């Protein structure tokens, strides 16, 4: 395990910020350009994971385990969110026979 952790010795924190920013933005782009509700959900998962990785990197940087505990809570939250969200998607599919978000425009101004 020692030589595995040697690999990050020397990676600047900026590069972690850069990586997580790019992944987060890919998630945002996915939410904006896709119409399938399930793919939109997956993009949200991508964003959550980007934040998780950044929290872990900062936790290592500051030598504080609280950051990794937060990541654990975010994972619990993501599990709850996915369960409820997919239930809603199944309900929408039962009513409209599709998971296209463009069909759901009754509340659109």
């Amino acid at each position: 395990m020692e030589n595995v952790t040697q690999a990050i010795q020397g990676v600047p924190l900026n590069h972690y910020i850069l990586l997580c920013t790019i992944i987060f933005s890919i998630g945002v782009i996915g939410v904006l350009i896709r119409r399938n509700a399930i793919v939109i959900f997956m993009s949200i998962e991508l964003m959550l994971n980007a934040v998780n990785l950044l929290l872990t990197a900062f936790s290592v940087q500051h030598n504080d385990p609280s950051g990794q505990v937060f990541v654990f809570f975010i994972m619990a939250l993501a599990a709850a969110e996915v369960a409820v969200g997919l239930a809603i998607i199944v309900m929408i599919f039962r009513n409209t026979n599709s998971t296209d978000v463009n069909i759901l425009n009754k509340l659109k101004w």
Partner: protein
Amino acid sequence: MSISLFYFVAFLSIFFALLVIFAKNPVHSVLYLIVTFFTFTIHYILLNAQFLAIVNFIVYMGAIMVLFLFVLMLLNLNEGSIGSKSNLIKMIGVIAGMCLIITLVGSARVLNASEPLVLQTQDLGLVKNLGKVLFSKFLLPFEVSSILLLSAMVGAVLLAKKEIKQVK
């Protein structure tokens, strides 16, 4: 083992994340997302956050992604059943995302946080260390999260079950 391993895994993460949002078939999207999460697990191992690596592997790749795959298979969505947005909207979405990247990177530059990441204590992310923190400092949030999971389970069952017609 060198510093380039991080950059290789980072490249893989970005590559598969891009494939997730640009794949036509939603099943392919889910599979690419699993690969993306696997690269994240490697990132956690590199940061010596072993507990998070295992949790990410089991909970995300094992549970959540299987849930996605199950729902996708149950709904039986065909490739062409859902059209894509118009090219104009796509372009605007991509440009907006690029603007977000530029804004965040620009603000991160000001932070001047470019000192190399150093693992000060080797056992920071181990189960023993995290468990101590979780059950002392974060005991109340831990219990509250159990209630959150319970309510999510009840909510999911309530939402997904068929409405029973009230015949009187």
